[in-house]
């Protein structure tokens, strides 16, 4: 035993150190993924007997209008959430200067990311609220009739995304600010001597050096858009009449909410969402792997 240990110590040690993490990951992340897939083939209310129904849940999903709405909203989320990357970059560049009290300004811009999403949702609900909301009042002042964003099926998703962008831009900004600290001053100096300024300086000198920050910003934004749940839940509960649903909220509604408890159907939605996320995540992992092997 001890001879084996001596011979293979260097090979085994990393695995022993990794074991606690790996076991946790397997039990709490990997296993539930397969359990969800398994449940998605059943008709189960969480109480009685689970009945095997094969792919019937998926067949129902394909023809479910709520699923179409949720899917469409997820795509809108994904597209508009991407705005936080250029917006965050813009603010970061704007704040990346040395004036008196800049630290205070930076922390003020970072503030929306510090407060909880639930609070962000509440603030924006009041902002939009018919009758007394600030935005409602402003629109009423200019056009004569107020618009209740969260009651309008065509506007509601955009209203929620606007609320989500507020903290997300702050998050991306902080990523870029740390990135800008690492921009090599000698390269900027050299570019300046060569006559580069403005857009060309940004595009050819600064941005290439910010690539790692951009990569992380895109990853967290994509994942943030796909798992958007708290804002939808707080601001509209998926309403009016389900027009602001996204996949993660629809999954919660069917499986766990007051009128839900269709565990199999909810699990099927979760599997679809997992599939969509996997497309992006494997893309990201592939890119990271490629970058590392190239080096």
């Amino acid at each position, binding site marked *: 035993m001890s001879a084996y240990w001596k011979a293979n110590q260097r090979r085994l040690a990393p695995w022993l150190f990794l074991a606690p993490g790996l076991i946790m990951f397997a039990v709490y992340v990997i296993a539930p993924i397969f359990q969800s897939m398994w449940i998605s083939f059943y008709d189960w209310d969480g*109480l009685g007997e689970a009945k095997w129904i094969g792919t019937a849940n998926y067949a129902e999903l394909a023809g479910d*209008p709520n699923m179409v709405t949720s899917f469409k909203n997820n795509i809108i989320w994904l597209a508009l959430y991407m705005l936080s990357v250029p917006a965050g970059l813009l603010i970061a560049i704007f704040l990346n200067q040395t004036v008196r009290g800049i630290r205070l300004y930076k922390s003020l811009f970072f503030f929306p990311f510090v407060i909880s999403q639930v609070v962000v949702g509440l603030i924006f609900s009041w902002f939009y609220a018919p*009758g007394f909301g600030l935005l409602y009042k402003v629109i009423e002042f200019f056009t004569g009739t107020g618009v*209740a964003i969260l*009651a309008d099926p065509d506007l509601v998703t955009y209203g929620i995304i606007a609320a989500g962008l507020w903290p997300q831009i702050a998050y991306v900004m902080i990523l870029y600010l740390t990135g800008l600290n690492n921009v090599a001053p000698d390269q900027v100096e050299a570019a300046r001597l060569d006559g580069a300024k403005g857009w060309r300086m940004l595009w050819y000198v600064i941005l290439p050096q910010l690539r790692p920050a951009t990569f992380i910003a895109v990853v967290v934004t994509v994942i943030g858009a796909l798992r958007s749940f708290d804002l939808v839940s707080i601001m509209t509960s998926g*309403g*009016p009449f389900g027009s602001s649903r996204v996949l993660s909220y629809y999954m919660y509604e069917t499986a766990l909410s007051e*009128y839900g408890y269709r565990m199999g159907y909810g699990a099927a939605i979760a599997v679809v969402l997992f599939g969509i996320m996997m497309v992006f995540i494997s893309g990201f992992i592939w890119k990271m792997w490629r970058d590392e092997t190239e080096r």
Partner: protein
Amino acid sequence: MVHRKAGALAIMAALLMSSSAIAQEKRILKYNADYDPIPLAAMEALIADFEAANPDIDVQLNNFDHEGYKTAIRNFLTADSPDLANWYAGNRMAPFVAAGQFMDVTDVWDANGLNEALGSAAASMTIDGKKWGVPYTYYQWGIYFNKDAYAAAGVEVPGPEGVDWATFVSNCEKFKAAGIDCLTTGTKALWPGAGIFDYMSLRTNGYEWHMDLTAGKIAWTDESVKKVFTELAKVQPYVTANHAAIDWQDAAALLVQGKAANYVMGNFAVGVFKEGGMTNDNLGFMAFPEITPGIPRSEDAPTDTIHIPSGATNVEDAKKFLAFVASADAQTKLNAAIGQLPTNKNSTVAADDPFITAGFKMLSEAHALAQFFDRDAPAEMAKAGMEGIQQFLVQPDQLDAILERLEQVRGQVYK
């Protein structure tokens, strides 16, 4: 030191023995519930009375948060069952009955003459010809109105007997002219809209039809359903415009401020109206107007109930408790404290509360009592239905699409 340790041990042992002796004297009855503060105090008083009458029983009330309870009950019924649990009547209890989680308590009903005393609630407690729990309170739904708003719009204030449907609709036009919402609601949480639909349905086609609809026996694309929505369309333009973005309390504020005249609500809203400054003088109540002449008047009266889970260990005492809760005196006292109506017809209600007395009279004379849309219809149908009703109140031109979708859901829910 050794002596002192031995002494401490002896004291410990004595303490342990004495506490187990107490436990032997009193039989424990575990009760899981979801009361808000005022009902909680009332139920604690009822439990004190019960323990005074049964000194050998110790009721241990374990109170949950109201919303969290709806999830918790599914866990504790299977994992760590109490002897008693709160829930609701009608289709809401059907999943638990079907899964064998609630105990048949027909013998409690038979032994205590409850079939007669709790007659109005009996039907909603019955599944497969058996009783699955005991109701302890319910409350009426109807139209609450602001008399000041009526005066401001120059509309005659309805008397206790209410108005007819044509008058109600024509009043709405006058309110519109005065810039007041004729009918207010806040459908952000969906269910307040279902109250309006329930009454449209009960008044247009009657209780039996409404029960058939919620039981999935009538197609949503049927002509009779369209009749209900035709009536609803008459008041749709006069409903508060942004109801989909506000909660029922926000709509209550509109009524209190006189920006809205009528509100289809349950009696629990009276507390909110009065907190907002309304009094018995300017807050009015009437039954929902008759629409199709000759249909016997039925009402919504959601009933709260207590059940014995199948995993209960102290069944005998649990049944004693149910019989006590069902008794006329206990219900009189409990409901006086929480401002609702007793389900026992031999109980009495406070004569100085005009809403309680009106509700008690209204429900005792009703042809039949519906629970509420989301308790009469199965969960999935209820959710889709309430969304459809909300959508109709916003986009009445989408009616055909709404009904088609509901019909599709009906095909999936009732197999």
